[in-house]
């Protein structure tokens, strides 16, 4: 039996982000008061506590801040993907996202390497932002 991979647990804080993903846009919250870009989404700015929030569209370009290579499937649904890369990607706008690096061998990944977003449409309504080595 193959188990299904988990889907995002969308809530009031994260809904706008996942709606953006559905349209293949990375929408990041920006404080309407001090301009701080924040991740994960929250209803207050962690810097100035303002509740004024705007959404900005991130370019989808960034660098690998850190990464790991999973050799064990903690959830059997991921067994077929082994070995796979989980990374923290630093978007060029600032925020860091937990994501996957795809489209290259895990041994080709390194810290600070440039990456760009690629969309994984896992259902009709959910797309996951993953990253691949940036085109030169």
């Amino acid at each position, binding site marked *: 039996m193959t188990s299904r991979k988990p889907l995002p647990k969308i809530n009031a804080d994260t809904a706008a982000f996942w709606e953006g993903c559905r349209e293949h846009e990375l929408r990041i919250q920006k404080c309407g008061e001090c301009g701080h870009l924040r991740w994960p989404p929250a209803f207050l700015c962690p810097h100035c506590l303002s509740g004024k929030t705007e959404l900005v569209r991130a370019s989808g370009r960034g660098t690998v801040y850190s990464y790991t290579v999973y050799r*064990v499937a903690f959830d059997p649904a991921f067994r077929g993907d082994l070995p796979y890369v*989980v990374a923290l990607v630093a978007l060029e706008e600032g925020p860091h996202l937990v994501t996957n690096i795809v489209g290259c061998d895990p041994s080709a990944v390194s*810290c600070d390497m440039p990456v760009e977003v690629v969309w994984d449409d896992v259902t009709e309504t959910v797309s996951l932002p993953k990253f691949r080595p940036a085109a030169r």
Partner: protein
Amino acid sequence: MHAVGVLEAGLCRHVLLSYGDCGRSGNSMMQLLANLNAEDAVFGHFGATGGYALAARRAMHEFHTGPDTWKQIAVGQRKWANLNPRAAMYGRTMTEADYDRSPWIVEPFRTADNCLLTDGGRACILTTLERARDLRHPPVTIMGLGMYNPAADIAPARHLAGPTGARRAGETALRMAGITLDDIDACEIYDCFTYTVEITLQDYGFFKPGEGKDWLQGGTIGPGGRMPVNTSGGQLSEAYYMGLTPLTEGVMQLMGRCGERQLGPKTGNKKPEIILCSDNGGILQSHACYILKRG
């Protein structure tokens, strides 16, 4: 720290610090870890191993640590476990070659870099010094305490390779105790992963970033070494009881109740007067340091 507060305020006479879990036979620990980063499960990121592996990888990039450093921690602590009949790994030795053969879990971590899941528990009673002097065992006192919690989540962390909360928590505890690192006879460090021991000792100031490999060289932390660390085998080789693995070992060593592994002539170490213990939570997001003294 809260226990000290309620005792000092006179709200309690004795405080029991306890931890028990069926981490091995049950799934409570895995459930707890799954809830820790449920948002990241969509990317196949689970539990603590992946999070600490991210921190360790960044550390490899920034100050060139790696498995050659961590294996000395795994092997050194195992030597202590081999002297501790209560340790899960009491009868199993580990050489550097054994470490190298240990299978990958989440790179850069091998099985040997991970702590154990154990069934069991630990407890410790905190009271005032005046009351403790009337009890059967010699008292151990708290000289200094420090806590520092630098981030709420791993994604916003900008200093994944340190300094962790250990830097400020350690400074605070040493200042309160009125001592320096030179006065410390042994350390009991929260060791969910080998790397956690390295970054904690580094942030306390025992060595500069990346110099852990040299500092650890030659059995520094093992029996007879110049700075014994995790003298029960720790969470890597004795048992995982959260912060009570290091705390209770520090207390037991200072009371002189550790049998074969008792620091002193038997192990080729100095009889300890002062032991530094640590605890941390999340993915290196919260940290506590406490310095204990015999008598």
